[in-house]
């Protein structure tokens, strides 16, 4: 059993608009048989935080194109992407790419 995890989620670049405009969410992920990874975090967010139009955030089992995921201030590709195992107190940021000028 994985113990409950307390992590900070942040949304930015417009992604926060899918979460009532709230940028920072301190969340507790409940204890579960498997360790928490980003894949299961995305499913948890879709279930618990996303209010509407989930396809603007997740597509299949990953984030939609144009959202950059940062784990503790680093690009998630450096950390194992969907397979990264979350640690207590981790900071995970989902940021939409901006195109305006």
């Amino acid at each position, binding site marked *: 059993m994985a113990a409950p995890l307390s992590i900070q989620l942040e949304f930015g670049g417009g992604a926060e608009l899918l979460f009532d405009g709230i940028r920072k969410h301190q969340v507790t992920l409940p204890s579960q048989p498997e360790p928490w990874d980003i894949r299961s975090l995305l499913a948890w967010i879709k279930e618990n935080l996303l209010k509407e139009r989930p396809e603007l955030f997740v597509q299949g089992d990953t984030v939609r194109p144009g*959202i950059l995921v940062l784990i503790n*201030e*680093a690009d998630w590709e450096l950390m194992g992407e969907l397979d990264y195992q979350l640690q207590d107190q981790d900071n995970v940021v989902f940021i939409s*790419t*901006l*195109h305006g*000028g």
Partner: protein
Amino acid sequence: PLPLRTELSRLEIQRYSRQLVLPETGVRGQLRLSACSVLVVGCGGLGCPLAQYLAAAGVGRLGLVDHDVVELSNLHRQVLHRESRLGTSKARSAAAALREINSAVQCVPYELALGRDTALQLVRAYDVVADCSDNVPTRYLVNDACVLAGKPLVSASALRLEGQLAVYGYRGGPCYRCLFPKPPPPETVTNCADGGVLGVVPGILGSLQALEVLKIATGMGTSFHQAMLIFDALEGRFRHIKLRPRNPDCAVCGDNPSVTALQDYEQFCGSSATDKCRMLCLL
């Protein structure tokens, strides 16, 4: 390419004296700057402050690309344009303003929307490219042209109260496609007309973009070739993010690229590079 001169004139020494005393620039950096040409893609909220500081610093040549004309709703952030130039070409309006700051800089206006037929030739003619555009197809187009031509790309963007900055295709670092292999679904993309933007936010980002261009042009190098700066204006916070390395499987900069010539980027992204309908609806 511009000639690399061997000395500065007396007037140049006077004009650039505050930069010349910096060990990081010096006479050598100033000479490099005056031999450097920069293509500015977009003369809007980012392009205006960027071009302003590059011209003031003494870059040799500035190419100024914009197909649009100056509108009243531009003036809150596009600081090179003026009330008296409403309705005139942005590229020419910018060039005129820059010449008043520094007549020694060659300012070349290009009144066109960068397309697959024009981009590569233009990018090849410049040393560094600054992406100051405002739409997704142009961002992929400029990236691919820079990769194909082997030019460093300093890219910034701004919307609402946020901004982002990165340098692509520089010293073995990733390109824009390495980060974003697939374009975002068109319905998730917000432009400045829909989302709004506080004018000084592109001002800050365009100035930071100019700094990175100047650091590359003078030989200081950049700290953002595998990193991204993310700005939140409301909190006044900057994040400095470490990015992934170049992707050897990248469609354009990878070891076996599938993109070896420019494409139809409007089709690729499912959106237009010059769409103004939503902007007009608002007014």
